[in-house]
């Protein structure tokens, strides 16, 4: 049971780290960013290259993966996302989906299509209440909470964060104060992309790394964002862990249904809580 709980929290943590970017991009720019899945997968692949080919330690390789993704995210933001500001949602969805397709094909081109697996970088277990648990998973859960706290401070205490929060609420009002909101939104986009890459890096040792890994997780993250409320920071946090628990609990009884159950939960939530976006 403890194993299931920890697994749920691990998945929840990963989902949270990846979903923040989606939620923020939607809240600030009104764009559903499918390209997020590409950034996520790219992070994992860069980690593998840095770890296997360049011989860096896991920690350094992870850092490399997250940082090396940022220029790519910047290019996506500057050439695709920025051109979609104020456009109808449909074009934004189609254009970012196109970026995802191109990205997946690039990954297949560079790294090949076969899945790559990675060992647990810590490889130690710790015993809690008679159940042995991998330390790595506990690290992920801790990291998710640290990021949640860090983002909370960022959005409450720093001026950049405050501008973004104000922009989430009323973009035009912030702009009329003479603040270039879009520039701050770009910063948020990079932040979200970096976190997505971090999610990919952290999840890589748990699952296998393959070009389509982004597609799978993206659907789950959309469910997280829809259940938690688009653009809501606390909502995303709570729903990520709740859906992580749904996955691990369902998986305990019927493995193949685990991820589908998330969508069932999402549908039920939508019946009772209609959203207008």
């Amino acid at each position: 049971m403890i194993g299931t709980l920890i697994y749920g929290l691990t998945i929840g943590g990963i989902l949270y780290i990846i979903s923040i970017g989606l939620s923020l991009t939607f809240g600030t720019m009104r764009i559903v960013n499918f390209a997020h899945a590409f950034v996520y997968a790219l992070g994992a692949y860069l980690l593998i290259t840095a770890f296997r080919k360049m011989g860096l330690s896991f920690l350094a390789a992870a850092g490399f993966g997250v940082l090396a993704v940022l220029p790519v995210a910047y290019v996506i933001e500057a050439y695709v996302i920025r051109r979609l500001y104020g456009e109808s949602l449909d074009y934004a969805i189609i254009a970012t989906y196109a970026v995802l397709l191109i990205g997946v094909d690039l990954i297949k081109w560079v790294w090949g299509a076969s899945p790559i697996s990675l060992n647990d970088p810590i490889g130690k277990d710790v015993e809690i209440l008679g159940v042995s648990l991998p330390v790595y998973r506990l690290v992920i859960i801790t990291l998710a909470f640290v990021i949640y706290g860090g983002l909370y401070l960022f959005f409450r205490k720093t001026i950049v964060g405050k501008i973004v929060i104000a922009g989430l609420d009323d973009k035009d009002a912030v702009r009329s104060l003479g603040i270039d909101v879009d520039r701050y939104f770009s910063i948020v986009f990079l932040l979200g992309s970096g976190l997505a890459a971090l999610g990919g890096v952290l999840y890589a040792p748990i699952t296998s790394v393959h070009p389509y890994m982004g597609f799978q997780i993206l659907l789950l993250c959309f469910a997280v964002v829809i259940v938690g409320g688009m653009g809501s920071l606390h909502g995303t946090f709570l729903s990520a862990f709740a859906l992580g628990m749904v996955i691990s609990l369902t998986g305990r009884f019927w493995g193949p249904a685990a991820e589908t159950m998330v969508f069932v939960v999402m549908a039920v939530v939508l019946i009772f809580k209609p959203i207008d976006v």
Partner: protein
Amino acid sequence: MKIPWKKYDCLLIVAGFLLLLPFLKIQRTTDFIIFCVFVLSYDLLYGYMGRLSFGPMLFLGAGAYAVTLFSEHLSPNPFLALSFAVVAAAAVGALIGPIIVRTTGAAFALINLAFNQIGHFLVLIAFAKYTGGEDGMSAHFSKVGFFDVQDRTMIFVFSLFCLVLAFYLLKRLTSSPFGILLRTIKENETRARFLGYDTFLYKWGAFVISGGLAGFAGALSIMNYGYVTPSFIDPHRNVEVIFAVLIGGAGNLYGAIIGGVAYMVVSNYLATYIARWEMFLGIGLLLLVFRFRTGVWGAVTGLLASRRGEAETR
């Protein structure tokens, strides 16, 4: 915008597909025609009602599996099976419609995708005992009078007839008050509601019609191929129909058919020469979104309009 040959459009569609015949195998051409029916169903939802769905494959798959299961367990009569498939796909639409059509924009697209995912899971894993799981299953239909599904020419003629019928009915539908209200919802739903229309019912209706027609396309494909696999309900294939609608130009039935044929030509023939197919698709989509938003049909009518404009000023 008046186009002189609009009266003969149904005949032109028939002529167009007959002209394709010498270049393609007959089964391929039938495949093209069926895909156009699917694109038409999607255009009603996206082009006319303005709701981008990322899950139309759910309905194609529902029709495909319904026709196969019906012919296997209840009756091998192809017409009964086909009707059952349409009803089944429309019923799926009617069932999940009330949840889906209340949302707009991103949520609409994603919830459709989520239901598509659930449907894919159901046929692939949950009901694998009945659907054959990953291997799929073959479908057998009996002969009814002179109509034989095994006969390639027969199924070609039948599909073409169905496409023209679907096209004609949709043309009537989209120019009826119902269709005009759908376009009003696309432009400004609040205003439509303000005028006293219960937009929910209209959206639900359009969703069910679109689903039923997509299911019909799925069922026809099964008659053409003779077997069903989970690829008929694969959520990753949703982008195909979106791409087709965009190539042709959304919100226009002629555009839908041009787009359907164009997409099938590109995916069937270019894909064998282009090694990086997904990249090509992605770049194509980006170009359509940023440069050619009105698609082929928009370009054609634009050209005609500017020609006529020149003639008038001269």
